[in-house]
Every structure is written in C-alpha cells, then in structure tokens.
C-alpha cells in the first residue's frame, strides 16, 4: 500500500513577499533544509533546496527541489497490506514580475513518484494600496494528477484541481500586522486511495469483519477562511495568533487555532508555538460498515475521521552572518533547528490491532517532526 499525495501549492508560499514596505521583490536567498518525520510507524525524510535570485529591478526567479524518502508501516499498512518504501520528487520554478505597486507571480510545480504524477500551474497578482498599508492578492492554480497502481500497470485515473485564493494583508498600527485569507479548492476525478480498504462486519470471518476497497465521491469543494495577526511586543519580541475555519462538501468542518511567541537574544532567536486543530468527520467515513457495500460512498482514511490534533513547537535560529559581518557575496546567514511534536486523537478511527472487535481502542498518533536548515541572503 502506498502513499497518495496531492501536490501542495508550494509556489504561493515561496513567492510570498518578505517585506511590509510594499512594491519590492523578495530578497535574494538560498535555503538548504533536511526534514524528518517519525511517527505512527512512518518515517519520511529528505532534503529541500530553494534558490531565489533577482534579475534586474523587476524580475525575481525562484527554484525549489524537494525529496521525500518514505518508509511506511503505518496502522493502515500493517492491517491491510505490507510495509513499503518509496520516493517522491518535487520540482518547482517560479517568477515574480514587479511593476509599480503590482507584483505578478507565475509558477510550475511537478511532483513525481512511482504511482502518482502531479503538475500544477499557478498564477497570482498582488497590489499594494493605501500608502502600502494594504496588500491585496488574488491567486489561481490548476493542477492535474495521474493516479496509478504499482501492482497494475494498466491502472490509470485522472484528477483535476482548481484553487482560488484571495488574501488581504493589512498594517493596522506600527506594532501590528494582520492577514486575512480565503481559499476555495475544487477537486474532480479519482479522489480515493487506490490501495486503501474499508472494513465491514462479516459474521463469516473469524475476526468478525472483512475488507473491501474504499470508494469516494468524485468531487470535493472546500472553503477555508484564515485570520492571522502578529504583534511587536515592547521589549522586541513578537506574538502571533492565528485562527482558521474550514468546511467542505464532504461535510468536514474544522477549527484551527495557534499561538506563537518569538524571542530574539543576541544572535539567537527562539520560537515556541502551540497549535490546536479539531474537525468533524467526512459524511462517508465509518470505522466499520454494517455490511459489504453498505453505502454509496465509503472511506476509512483516518484523516477523514473526527479528530483533534495538538502540536507543540520549539525552534532556535542562530545568525552567524549579519549586516555587520558578511562573508563574500553573503550578507546574512542563519542556522536553524526546529522540533514539532504532533499528537492526534481520533474520535472514531480504531486501532484494530489493540483487541477483538468491539473492544478496540481509539487510535492515537504521536509524531516528531525535525527540521534543520541553513539560510543565506546575498
């Protein structure tokens, strides 16, 4: 059984303006990151490398290479399939064009793995207004996925995805900046995992249940509204609060909130964050169905279960090059380490290895996410 991944619209992120002064291109920089996820029987690690460079006063180019090396023996995998390893490679290239107070961005992203191929084309335009106090961004992206199966070379299904975004960043006071984002994503095509199964009650089985392939609706539309504000504290530290409301046509409704504190100390910067997420489950999710083909649509993806997740983050950055101590072409440089501890409580998804039918415990996931990266500005 293998991962199924949709392409993250990384281009929107790597193209975000880094200045609050408006009308400027993002800084030239390079980042080399190593990431590692460990939890629930899954280990995913690999590098991510980003390079951004201006060309003249109006253009900036960005490229990113990202690799996931996956070793999975997750709860889904060990109960219905065999552990596996695989790789996912993602490339993206993008361009920013600045003209007056308007910045246009275009990007292309490719994600390839043995049984999943995704391409995304993204475009956005930002306008700085009202003396650069306000930045309005409109974004659109179109994605195409090809879903395959490693055990069936003739299997091929297609997906398309469209993303619409509106963002408003507002300087409210000399200490406070806020951003409001609304995003709609529509998917159409083969949206379920070709390997994953649901289980149903089966008195003819020794376990009391059997498995059959999951079957999802062929469309999904989601809406998300997020508000984030960052405040400069009187003693040079920052506090950020964020809230997001999410809803989709699969009847998942989610609330996400977080609080971040950033504290510089000499060449070091420390960051602590707590994030909370709570969601209802998809309408067609059930941990166990009453019989085979009991409903038109059926799924047992634990991410579609009602769940609550908690994340605790610690991060430290060390600036070894600054504006007073450059090195060659490099003006600034920082070394960064972060650890995110993720804990997820599933409210309906059960651990079927924990006991006989009817006595199974609800599943819980605990994971650590490590990042170490170096950044250079030139």
């Amino acid at each position, binding site marked *: 059984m293998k991962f199924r991944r949709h392409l993250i619209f990384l281009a929107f992120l790597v193209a975000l303006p880094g200045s609050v002064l408006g009308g400027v291109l993002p800084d030239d920089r390079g980042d080399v990151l190593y990431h590692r996820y460990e939890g629930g029987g899954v280990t995913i690690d690999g590098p991510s490398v980003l390079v951004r460079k201006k060309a003249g006063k109006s253009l900036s180019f960005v490229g990113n290479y990202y690799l996931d090396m996956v070793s999975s023996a997750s709860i889904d995998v060990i109960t219905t399939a065999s552990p596996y390893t695989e790789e996912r490679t993602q490339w993206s290239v993008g361009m920013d064009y600045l003209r007056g107070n308007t910045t246009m961005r275009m990007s292309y992203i490719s994600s390839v793995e043995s049984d999943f191929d995704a391409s995304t084309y993204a475009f956005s335009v930002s306008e700085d207004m009202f003396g650069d106090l306000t930045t309005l961004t409109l974004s659109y992206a179109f994605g195409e996925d090809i879903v395959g199966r490693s055990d069936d070379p003739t299997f091929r299904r297609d997906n398309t995805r469209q993303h619409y*975004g509106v963002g408003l960043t507002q300087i409210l006071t000399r200490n406070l900046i806020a*951003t409001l984002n609304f995003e709609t*994503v529509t998917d159409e095509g083969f949206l379920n995992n070709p390997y994953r199964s649901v289980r149903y009650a089966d008195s003819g089985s020794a376990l009391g249940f059997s498995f059959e392939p999951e079957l999802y609706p062929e469309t999904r539309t989601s*809406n998300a509204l997020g508000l984030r504000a960052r405040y400069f504290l009187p003693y040079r530290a920052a506090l950020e609060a964020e809230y997001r409301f999410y809803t989709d046509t699969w009847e998942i409704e989610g609330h996400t909130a977080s609080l971040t504190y950033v504290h510089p100390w000499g060449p070091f910067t420390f960051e602590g964050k707590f994030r909370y997420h709570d969601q209802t489950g998809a309408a067609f999710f059930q941990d166990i169905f009453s019989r085979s083909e009991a409903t038109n649509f059926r799924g047992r993806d634990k991410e579609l279960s009602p769940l609550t997740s908690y994340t605790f983050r610690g991060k430290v950055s060390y600036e070894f090059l600054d504006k007073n101590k450059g090195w060659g072409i490099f003006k600034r440089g920082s070394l960064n380490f972060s650890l995110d501890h993720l804990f997820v409580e599933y409210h309906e998804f059960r651990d079927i290895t924990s006991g006989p039918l009817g006595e199974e415990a609800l599943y819980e996931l605990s994971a650590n996410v490590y990042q170490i990266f170096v950044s250079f500005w030139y």
Partner: protein
Amino acid sequence: MKFARPGRILLALLACYGLSACSVEPWVKPYERDRLADPIMALEGDPVSTAYIQHVYEAREGARGGEGAAGGGCGCN
C-alpha cells in the same frame, strides 16, 4: 456557514482596487514601520520550512488552505 457569491467578492475587490487610486493618507507612515520590518515580524520568514510543515499538517488532517500560503491537500496514510 455560507460564503458570499463569487460575483460579490469580485465586485468588492474591484471596489478596493478603485479606491486604491484615491489618495488615502497612510496612518502608519513609512518611517514608522521599522518594527514591522524587523525579521521577527515576518509573516513568512522561512518559506521552505513553512511549506514543509504545512504539508505535514495537510497530510495528518482533513483540512487544507486558508493559511495564506498552501492549498491542495494530501491523503497520506
């Protein structure tokens, strides 16, 4: 929760764009934005790191988007 129709949103955006052509006195002057320009106030200071951790969230949760950066989703097991 119901959201406004796309046409109304577009109209509101066009109105904002039209207003931008008017002369609005910024209540926070450019020379008063030194604190906002401090790196600790950057909303997206580390784009590669932020993209990665949002990818993790989308893989582990059923929600996506609305955070000013990422969209899409992930059905990782």
